[in-house]
C-alpha cells in the first residue's frame, strides 16, 4: 500500500478512537468539565499532562531545530523539561490542596481581589490564544503535506475533532483522549528513531546510539563535528549563542513551563496532594522519553542529510529529495552551474535550503523505512497538535465561563447554566483558533516562543509568592504581574517586531542594543526577576493581607484535608 492510503487509515483509526473516548467520558457537571471530577489516576494524569504539554512544536519542529543548531538547541531540551521540577516542587501540590478550578481562581482568592483575578484571566487568555493558533496551524500543515488536502480543509477537520471532544467531554473527555494521544505520538516518534538508530549504529536505543560509533568506527558526534568544520558551520557540539543568552533562554523556558495555565490546571484533576506530586513525576518521565530521543534523531538526520546531499550531483538525488522539493521545503539553486550540490555555511556560495521541520517529517523516508512508518509520523503529529489544542481550549473556556461569568458577572448562575456557558465559549474559542490557523498572522510563530516569556513574567512569581511568602498582599502581586507582563511585551515589541524603530526590517540591527545581550526569547527571565522585586518591595509598604488569607496559606502548605477544600 502507498503512503497516502496508510496515512488515511491510521489517521482515520486514531480519530475514531478519540471520538469514541469522548462519547464514553462526556461531562455532566462543571466539576467534571473543568477538572474531570478530581478523580484522575496519577499515571493517567501523567500521560495526559505529557500529551497536553508536547505540542506540534515538540513533535515536529524540536528535533529539526536541534539538528540545525546543535548545542544551542539544548535550551529547549533543558528548558522544557526542567520546568517540571519547578512545577512538582513549588506549585503542583499546593495548588491541588487549594483545590479550585483554575489559575485565576487561585490568584483571585489568594490575593482577595477581583482585580487580581481579572489581570490573571487576561494573562491566561493572551498566553493560551497565541499558543493554540500555532497548534491549529500545525494540524493544517500535517494534513496538507501528508494527505494533500489544502491547509484550510485540514484546519477545519482538526477543528471539528477538537470541538467534538472538548465541548462534549470537557476536562474529563480531554484527559482520556490525551492518554490515547500520548500513546499514539510516542509510538510514532520512537519507531522511526529505533529503526534509524539500528541502521546507523547497530544499537536499538537511540539515547545510546547517540553516543555510539557508526559503521566506520568513528563516533557519530565526532564525525558530524568534522563535517561541520569542513563545510564552515560552527561545530555541532559547541554553540554559537552567547553563554548569557543560553542561560537566560533556558531559565525563561523553564519558568514559563511552570507558569503555563494549561499545564498547571492538569494538577487540579487528581484526587489528593500526593497524587499531584506523583503525576508531575510521571509526566516528566513520559516527556523525557521523547526529549532524550529528539537530540539523537537530530544527530542521525543531520549526518544522514549531509552525507546524502553534500557535493553529490543533483541528478543522483533520491526520490524523497524531489518530493520535498515540490513542497518548497527543500530548494536547490545551482549557483555555479556545476550540477553538484554545495551545502555550506557561507550564504553566498550555499546552494541548498532545507526547512528544519523536514528533519522529523521526512526522516523515515530519508532512512528508507516502510510506508506504514512514514504514515505513523502524520498520525503522531496530529495527536501532538490536537492534544495541546484541546488543553488550551479548556483554559480559554473556563477562563470565560468560570472566572469571568461565574465569579465576576453573574455569581448566581446555576451549574447547568455555567456548563452551557463553558461549552459555548469552547466553541467560540475553537472558531477563533481555527481562524488564526487558516490565516496565520505573521507574528504567531514568533509569539508562541514568547508565550513562555509572558507566562514566566506574569504567573510564576504571583503563584510562588502566594504559596511561599505569607505576607505577600494584593498590591504587591498585582503590581508585579502588571509590570512583569508589560515589560516583557515592551521588550518583545521593541526587539522582536521593531515596533518603535520602523518595523520588522529594523530587528536585525537592533540586536546590538539587546539589554545585557539577552534575546527577546530569554528576556522572560529578566521580566520575572523584576516582577519578584516589584512585588516584594510594594508589599513592604502596603498593608499585610488579612488574617483569613494568612490562614489559607498555612492551610495549603499542609497536604491533609484536600478533599474538603475542593468543595466549591
Amino acid at each position, binding site marked *: 500500500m502507498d503512503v497516502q492510503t496508510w496515512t488515511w487509515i491510521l489517521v482515520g483509526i486514531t480519530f475514531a478512537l478519540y471520538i469514541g473516548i469522548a462519547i464514553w467520558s462526556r461531562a455532566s457537571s462543571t466539576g467534571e468539565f473543568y477538572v474531570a471530577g478530581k478523580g484522575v489516576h496519577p499515571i493517567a494524569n501523567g500521560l495526559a499532562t505529557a500529551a497536553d504539554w508536547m505540542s506540534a512544536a515538540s513533535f515536529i519542529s524540536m528535533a529539526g531545530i536541534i539538528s540545525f543548531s546543535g*548545542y544551542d538547541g539544548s535550551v529547549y531540551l533543558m528548558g522544557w*523539561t526542567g520546568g517540571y*521540577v519547578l512545577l*512538582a516542587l513549588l506549585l503542583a501540590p499546593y495548588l491541588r490542596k487549594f483545590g479550585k478550578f483554575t489559575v485565576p481562581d487561585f490568584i483571585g482568592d489568594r490575593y482577595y481581589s477581583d482585580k487580581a483575578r481579572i489581570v490573571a484571566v487576561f494573562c491566561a487568555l493572551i498566553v493560551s490564544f497565541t499558543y493554540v493558533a500555532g497548534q491549529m496551524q500545525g494540524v493544517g500543515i500535517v494534513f496538507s503535506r501528508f494527505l494533500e488536502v489544502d491547509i484550510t480543509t485540514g484546519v477545519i477537520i482538526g477543528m471539528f475533532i477538537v470541538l467534538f471532544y472538548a465541548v462534549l467531554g470537557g476536562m474529563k473527555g480531554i484527559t482520556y483522549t490525551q492518554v490515547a494521544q500520548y500513546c499514539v505520538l510516542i509510538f510514532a516518534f520512537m519507531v522511526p528513531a529505533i529503526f534509524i538508530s539500528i541502521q546507523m549504529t547497530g544499537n536499538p536505543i537511540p539515547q545510546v546510539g547517540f*553516543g555510539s560509533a557508526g559503521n566506520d568506527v568513528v563516533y557519530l558526534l565526532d564525525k558530524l563535528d568534522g563535517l561541520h568544520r569542513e563545510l564552515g558551520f560552527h561545530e555541532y*557540539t559547541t554553540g554559537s549563542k552567547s553563554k548569557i543568552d543560553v*542561560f537566560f533562554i533556558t531559565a525563561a523556558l523553564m519558568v514559563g513551563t511552570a507558569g503555563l495555565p494549561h499545564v498547571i490546571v492538569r494538577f487540579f484533576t487528581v484526587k489528593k496532594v500526593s497524587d499531584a506530586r506523583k503525576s508531575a513525576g510521571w509526566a516528566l518521565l513520559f516527556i*523525557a522519553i521523547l526529549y532524550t530521543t529528539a537530540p539523537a534523531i537530530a544527530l542521525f538526520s543531520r549526518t544522514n542529510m549531509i552525507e546524502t546531499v553534500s557535493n553529490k550531483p543533483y541528478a543522483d538525488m533520491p526520490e524523497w529529495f524531489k518530493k520535498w522539493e515540490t513542497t518548497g521545503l527543500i530548494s536547490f539553486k545551482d549557483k555555479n552551474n556545476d550540477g553538484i550540490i554545495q551545502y555550506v555555511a557561507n550564504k553566498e556560495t550555499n546552494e541548498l535550503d532545507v526547512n528544519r521541520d523536514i528533519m522529523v517529517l521526512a526522516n523515515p523516508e530519508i532512512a528508507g523505512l516502510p510506508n506504514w512508518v512514514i504514515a505513523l509520523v502524520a498520525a503522531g503529529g496530529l495527536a501532538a497538535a490536537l492534544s495541546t489544542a484541546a488543553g488550551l481550549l479548556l483554559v480559554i473556556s473556563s477562563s470565560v465561563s468560570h472566572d469571568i461569568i461565574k465569579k465576576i458577572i453573574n455569581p448566581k448562575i446555576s451549574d447547568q447554566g455555567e456548563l452551557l456557558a463553558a461549552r459555548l465559549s469552547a466553541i467560540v474559542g475553537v472558531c477563533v483558533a481555527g481562524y488564526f490557523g487558516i490565516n496565520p498572522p505573521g507574528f504567531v510563530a514568533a509569539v508562541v516562543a514568547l508565550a513562555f516569556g509572558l507566562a514566566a513574567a506574569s504567573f510564576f512569581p504571583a503563584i510562588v509568592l502566594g504559596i511561599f511568602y505569607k505576607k505577600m498582599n494584593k498590591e504587591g502581586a498585582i503590581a508585579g504581574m502588571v509590570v512583569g507582563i508589560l515589560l516583557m511585551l515592551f521588550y518583545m515589541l521593541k526587539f522582536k517586531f521593531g515596533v518603535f524603530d520602523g518595523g520588522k526590517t529594523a530587528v536585525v540591527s537592533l540586536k546590538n542594543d539587546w539589554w545585557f545581550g539577552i534575546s527577546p526569547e530569554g528576556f522572560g527571565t529578566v521580566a520575572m526577576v523584576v516582577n519578584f522585586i516589584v512585588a516584594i518591595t510594594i508589599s513592604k509598604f502596603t498593608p499585610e493581607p488579612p488574617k483569613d488569607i494568612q490562614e489559607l496559606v*498555612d492551610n495549603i502548605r499542609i*497536604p491533609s484535608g484536600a478533599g474538603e477544600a475542593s468543595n466549591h
Partner: protein
Amino acid sequence: MNSELQKKYWRENLKYLAILLSIWFLVSYVFGILLVEQLNTISFGGFKLGFWFAQQGSIYVFVILIFVYIRLMNSLDKKYNVNE
C-alpha cells in the same frame, strides 16, 4: 495540627526543596551551560561530558529529582501525620 509542628513540617520541606533545587541548578545551569567548555574536555563514549549534560544528563537527573522528592515528602507527611 498545632502551629509549632506545622512550622517544623514546613521548615523540613523547605530544606528538601533547597537541596533538590541546588542539584537541579547544578546539572543544568552549571554543568550544561556555565562550565560546558571545561566539561567538554572530558569525554565518555562518544559524548563530550558538557554536551551530554545539556542534551541528556540533565533530563535524567530532573526525572530522578522528582521521584526522590515524592519519596521524601511521602515519608515527611507520614512523620507529621498530615498524609491523606
